[in-house]
């Protein structure tokens, strides 16, 4: 039996959530759709393919303070950042949620990252399954699906008279307390995502084609900006630096990407990945080889943001099929 929440019911529920928690939802910002804190329900956008930037921003912010210092008569005390703000993210797509869940691997393995851990348990994800996947989506090819509810706390699926509600986790159930749902026997159809990408066995293939000249040819047109890494829900690299302001010292963590020129430059100026080909290869090796070797799943959830945002159309799906072809030839 599926439980249904009417459109108005959903809006009043969101309204209640907003009273004690910060509600983040897809919102029109100029001609972009971005996850953003909303002050009123009518700012929330319900029909969209996906946001321009991924929701990782609310778990791994673009700029974060790890800790600040307080110094009194020359002994220094480190004050870690405590997050006490409860947040609810509404309208997160299954692929993004799976991306966030996937980063628990690198961030929560020992030693766990306290900030990530606090963000994760202070944030509740209300998923919205995709009714019509976009042309750039290929979640089914990388182990997910338009209605995959494995990583969200609550999964909503749009039906004729509202949204089918499924509380996935106990945190989700707590959030649903006091929300009366109608029973209904409508069966939820499994929407299809027809772009298929030959991601099967890509881990072995990438190992085989690591030294192929394909990478430098591919990197010819790459301009090495950080767009793909910053829009991607599963890219989690960062840079750390201290900052002083009015006598207070903060340790700042911000987004960084393997495509930046200085990312792997080491003391003395040597850069093991100085040429363009090796930097571009690093991105796809991490996603299709190193991450799966270390944490299991491919570090790509098929959201297609990098395909859409890349200024020179470096398309991971095209690369995967090229690599498979190359892999087959190498044998």
């Amino acid at each position: 039996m599926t439980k249904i929440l009417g459109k108005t019911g959903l809006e009043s529920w969101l309204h209640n959530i907003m009273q004690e928690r910060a509600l983040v939802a897809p919102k029109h910002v100029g001609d972009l759709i971005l996850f953003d804190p909303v002050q009123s329900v009518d700012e929330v956008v319900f029909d969209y393919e996906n946001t321009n930037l991924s929701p990782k921003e609310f778990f791994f912010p673009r700029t974060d303070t790890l800790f600040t210092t307080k110094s009194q008569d020359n002994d220094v005390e480190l004050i870690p950042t405590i997050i006490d703000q409860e947040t609810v993210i509404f309208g997160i797509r299954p692929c993004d949620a799976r991306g966030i869940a996937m980063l628990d691997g690198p961030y929560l393995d020992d030693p766990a990252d306290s900030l990530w851990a606090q963000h994760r348990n202070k944030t509740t994800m209300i998923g919205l399954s995709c009714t019509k996947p976009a042309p750039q989506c290929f979640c089914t090819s990388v182990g997910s699906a338009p209605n995959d509810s494995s990583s969200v706390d609550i999964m909503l699926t749009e039906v004729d008279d509202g949204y089918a509600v499924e509380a996935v986790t106990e945190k989700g159930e707590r959030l649903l307390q006091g929300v009366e749902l109608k029973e209904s026997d409508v069966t939820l159809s499994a929407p299809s995502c027809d772009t298929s990408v030959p991601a099967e066995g890509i881990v072995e293939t990438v190992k085989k084609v690591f030294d192929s000249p394909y990478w430098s040819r591919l990197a010819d047109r790459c301009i090495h900006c950080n767009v793909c890494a910053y829009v991607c829900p599963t890219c989690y690299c960062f840079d750390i630096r201290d900052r002083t302001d009015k006598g207070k010292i903060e340790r700042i963590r911000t987004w960084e990407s393997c495509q930046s020129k200085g990312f792997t430059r080491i003391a003395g100026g040597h850069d093991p990945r100085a040429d363009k080909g090796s930097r571009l290869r690093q991105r796809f090796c991490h996603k299709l080889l190193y991450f799966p070797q270390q944490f299991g799943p491919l570090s790509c959830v098929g959201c297609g943001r990098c395909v859409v945002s890349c200024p020179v159309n470096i398309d991971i799906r095209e690369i995967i099929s090229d690599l498979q072809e190359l892999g087959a030839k190498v044998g």
Partner: protein
Amino acid sequence: MGEDFTQQIRDKAKELLENGAVECVIGYETGSDGVSARPAFIYDAAEVDRLAFDNTCTHNLVKYLLDKKGKSTAVVVKGCDSRALNLLLSERQIQRDKVYVIGVVCPGVVEWGWNKRSEQLQKRCNWCRQHTPVVSDFAVGEPITEEPPAEFADVAEMATKTAEDRATFWRDQAERCIRCYACRQACPGCYCIDCFVELLDPEWVGIRIAPDENWMWNTIRAYHLGGRCISCNECERVCPVNIPLSLLNRKLEQEVLDLFDYKAGMSEDAPAPLITFKKDENLGIAE
């Protein structure tokens, strides 16, 4: 228009590759969405049929010549892109004898995105006063000679706002900037080994991706392009959060025109306005 241009480019590319005049031809090919164009690097004469030219060919390919220093390369340039050649030649970043220029008279590029293509011309093509390449070894298409004088309505409209509104407007843009530096990476004028924004010592711009730091980044990036920007508008196109960078560039373009009567990239040897001066010019400051 497309078919004829495409064929001319393919034939010229084939000829250049076969007689070894160039090692690589940089042009456009159709992207993975089958709809929009993307840069293409052809090394082998047999692959020239990948080359295509249509009204989504917007990338400024001159930027790639910076990676091909010393290697003889052919490049397809539109009117606006060609001005970047003069910029890089005047700043000694490329050698004229190593570059074979296939200059295409550009009818204008349409608004497009991945898997999206409209028939409406990009706003920058409405402003464009340089449809015909300023430099070319092989010309494709009929040159358009008479161009109406430049107009800067968007800049004027912005100037009507109060200082506070302008400050708020640019602060909102700065709020959205994620410092991915796509604008810098796409720009032919940006080729520094270490960009000022990434310097640790002196740390001009802090590491934080925050409004203050982003505001400084966007201001100085625009200033460093003052008198150098050839308004190919790649920076605005590649920005993932749609910051209207053309507003900044065109404001400076207008100022450089008014103050120094200078247009970037029009000739290889005219010195950029900020590295020369006239003793008795009156620039309206400290009068």
